[in-house]
């Protein structure tokens, strides 16, 4: 039985939720519609105009644009670096909070990660350019993936530390009493119980890689150029080409959205796995 106040609150909650949704969807819809408009219609702020496909055509078929390739590069770099960073950050987080490594090791690792996280990325890219050029790795996926992993590492590590703190200490102690090795504890208890956290931290790491401009600009070449760098070419010295930019953002948001929906599945499945325990 639902009381009247609960119902009122539920209704209130829905109103709040859809209110937020509206604030987000409004500009998104506006961008979507801009991707089908001429520059002048966008500049005039015209709500309705005959839809055109020129922006998408320029993006996909013009000889100066290779957007599908850029998207593929972004996806490839984003997915690989997310998987790597999730694995190494979760491993480190588990050891840090549950296996009592020496205090100095924890302090050094987390402290340095924090220092690195706080400094602006743009002050590093020059050094990375020199390092990767000397190694002959400039313009390769390897260089981009490594730097993207590093870039996302501090945040992912802090998040995983936070999420793993929610796993009851007793559970892990019990497993260890049963004779499980640390590796077994990690695989059988920590990973299933932190699927939700991993999905969230992974989504954020992926988005960070997906949006990165500064690193990708400096370490990529024409073959490994990522979508944000390609999109930035529409903000030109004398003109912002809003139509093409809108089309490019629509096309770059679709793959990311798919990832989010998949991630959602993971959250749910992870929770179910947790509930079964």
């Amino acid at each position: 039985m639902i009381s009247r106040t609960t119902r009122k609150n539920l209704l209130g909650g829905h109103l709040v939720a859809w209110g937020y949704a509206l604030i987000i969807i409004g500009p998104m819809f506006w961008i979507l519609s801009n991707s089908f408009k001429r520059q002048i219609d966008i500049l005039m702020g015209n709500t309705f105009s005959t839809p055109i496909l020129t922006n998408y055509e320029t993006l996909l078929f013009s000889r100066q644009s290779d957007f599908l390739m850029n998207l593929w590069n972004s996806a490839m770099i984003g997915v690989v670096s997310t998987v790597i960073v999730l694995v190494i950050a979760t491993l480190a987080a588990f050891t840090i909070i549950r296996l009592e490594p020496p205090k100095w090791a924890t302090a050094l690792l987390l402290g340095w990660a924090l220092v690195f996280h706080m400094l602006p990325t743009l002050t590093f890219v020059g050094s990375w350019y020199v390092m990767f050029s000397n190694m002959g790795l400039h313009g390769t996926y390897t260089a981009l993936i490594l730097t993207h992993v590093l870039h996302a590492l501090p945040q992912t590590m802090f998040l995983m530390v936070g999420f793993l703190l929610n796993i009851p200490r007793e559970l892990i102690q019990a497993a260890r009493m049963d004779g499980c090795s640390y590796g077994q504890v990690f695989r059988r208890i920590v990973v299933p119980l932190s699927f939700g956290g991993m999905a969230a931290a992974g989504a954020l790491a992926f988005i960070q890689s997906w949006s990165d401009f500064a690193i990708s600009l400096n370490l990529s070449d024409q073959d490994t150029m990522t979508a944000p760098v390609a999109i930035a070419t529409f903000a030109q010295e004398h003109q912002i080409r809003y139509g093409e930019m809108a089309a490019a953002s629509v096309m770059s948001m679709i793959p990311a959205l798919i990832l989010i929906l998949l991630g959602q599945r993971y959250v749910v499945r992870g929770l179910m796995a947790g509930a079964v325990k």
Partner: protein
Amino acid sequence: MKQTKTFLLGSVASAMLVAGPASAEEIRILINQSPWLNGFVAMVEEYEDQTDNTIELDVTPFGGMLEKTRNSVRGDDGRYDIVALNAAGMAEFYAGGFLKPLTEIDAEFALDENVLTFGGSTGWNFDTNGFSADGDLLGVPINGNVQVLYYRTDLYDEAGLTPPETWDDLMANAKALADDNTYGFIPRASRDSILYNFTSYLFSHGGSFFADPSGGDYSVTIASPEGLKALETYIALGNEAGPPNPGAIAQAELIQLMSTGRAAHAIAVVAAYPVLNDPNSSIVAGKVGTALIPAAEGEEHASAAGHWVAAIPKNVTGEKQDAALDFLNWFLSKKQQLFYVQSGGIPVRKDLSDSAGDNPSFAFLPAFSENASVSRMNMPLPQGSQISDAISLFLNQAVIGELTPTEALNKSADEMHRILTEAGYTLAEPSKL
């Protein structure tokens, strides 16, 4: 993907068309994405057709050009055989000694007298540490972007006006055309653009930034009666004939207001011409004319250079440098420059107007040539970007009313003097108001 890489089975006949050694070297060019890129790409393809050389373009967002150029020329082995440098960045690369003097690649090489140098910006004098057409030849212009005055020809015809000769004329015309739906004039007064926009005002009022930059005297002269007059004119045009809050108008807003028919005049780069006259991006296409930027009564006209040069770094092989110079030499010829304009480029020669005929894509050439001939570099020294950041703020604060024009110029003078003295220049005391 290679953007324009067309592998050519060059025939013997086409190879013989080019003067000089026809080497089959592939060169790589770093260039920014822009509306004039189509013209440049057309030129590159034409060159590949005529010779058996190949050119690979690395097309980069404008916002990333500086970093990529620095990365390449500072290393031991450069990635690019030709780099494109814009007016604001030239001094840094010239002064840093990254570029190969073109006469060291080919002792015979010289610029044709009809090639514009935009205030001597093709060369660098390492003694005075400033631009000089007589110094080491380090770059050749590849995009002749300068500022011009834009005006609405239809409104002019209606009101029976003629293009302004002086700043007072411009003010009168702007006020005459202003109404509820039209701003008379749009200044480009946001912090990142104001110095460039203000430059032609300063020079054409007889003012200057430095005492004698080409002679190596960088004593600061911005805070002069002429400078004050220039800044007052700048602010008055914005306040009396412009939109509210001109201090936030950057290039994007300026072009938006012009192309939507909301403005009667603006001073902006000639690169905006195709944008303002394309029906897909402008409702006033065909109604926007160009003219020489006004000057104060009895003073000389001036425009600010906003062009690009191509330069050849020292850290690539001699063969690449030869091949790169061959391309640039070809690029500058009159015949190719006409083709460049037709393909959407902005030319770098002043002798094209007579060959233009009635072709509408050449309509901007007369005003372009006039402005380009009087265009000057505003910050002809390596500390230019630091100075321009500092004084842009003061000028912008004068526009939004946080400083009086006198305060803004005095502060600018002090700051310029401090920056240059700390950098080791010996200067006379700055002039003050």
